């Protein structure tokens, strides 16, 4: 009920415009999806780096987070 000094509070933006979000979705979205890919699928179904080290290193996490491992 008792809000102090509401007059100096700048209006809060309720929605963030799409054009402000879009570049972040494109760049960060792609990089973060790569993170998920490396934990979830690299050197399993598909491989960008040769060998099996990544697969073996994240092995337990890949299984337990629910990704198909082998």
């Amino acid at each position, binding site marked *: 009920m008792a809000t102090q000094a509401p007059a100096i509070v700048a209006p809060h933006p309720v929605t963030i415009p799409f054009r402000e979000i879009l570049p*972040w979705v494109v760049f*960060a979205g792609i990089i973060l999806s790569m*993170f998920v890919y490396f934990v979830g699928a690299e050197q399993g179904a598909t491989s960008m780096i040769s060998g099996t080290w990544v697969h073996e290193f994240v092995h337990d*996490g890949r299984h*337990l987070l*629910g990704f198909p491992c*082998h």
Partner: protein
Amino acid sequence: MVRSLLIRGMLAGLVAGMLAFVVARLIGETPVELAIGFEEQHAHEHEEGAELVSRATQSGLGLAVATAVFGVAIGGLFALAFAVAHGRIGSLAPRATAAVLGVVGFVSVYLIPFLKYPANPPAVGNPNTIGERTGMYFLMIAISVLFAIAAMVLRKRAAVRLGEWNATVLAGAAFLVLIAVVMWLLPAADVSTGEFPAAVLWEFRIASIGIQAALWVVLAAGFGPLAERVLGKPRVVRS
């Protein structure tokens, strides 16, 4: 604005990932070790190559890095979804928006795909179908997330005519029916359990759900207050 949300999402995700690691150590490693024991017992005389990564590293540092990286990634994507959803999925405060997204995210990103293609421990699988199964799993995630977004859009549109409650029921029902159809259409998981003990398989899958649930709960609960600092507390409109 989006930048600070993104950073906070990744931070909350990092903490969530580290907590998921703790849960994985507590309840996940036991069935994994049992599964590996089973695998070794039943292994034919393959040429045993030198262990590339030791079991201690796999169940320690490897697991920690995997859950942390996954947490950061999911946290960042969560923040981007939040940036879109805030103020659009309803007149919800930042913490409430984060809570809704946490539930929707856990269900659509993990639980629904899990119901079609459940997590499998080592020794349960089929090396010949790993490509197909991985593809199907990611496809199931993509469809489920897409339908969840569509359901939230539908809910908002329908709310004008039907009211909040009916619109939510309608959108939820539409989501479930469409998901059921997709699950029916997609091929079944092609894995052989063979002689693998059912109790260990059950324990492993429950552990997997527990780890993911812990991650999403900590992420959503942790991100909410952080987002509130960026967006400010909900305005009290009184005139």
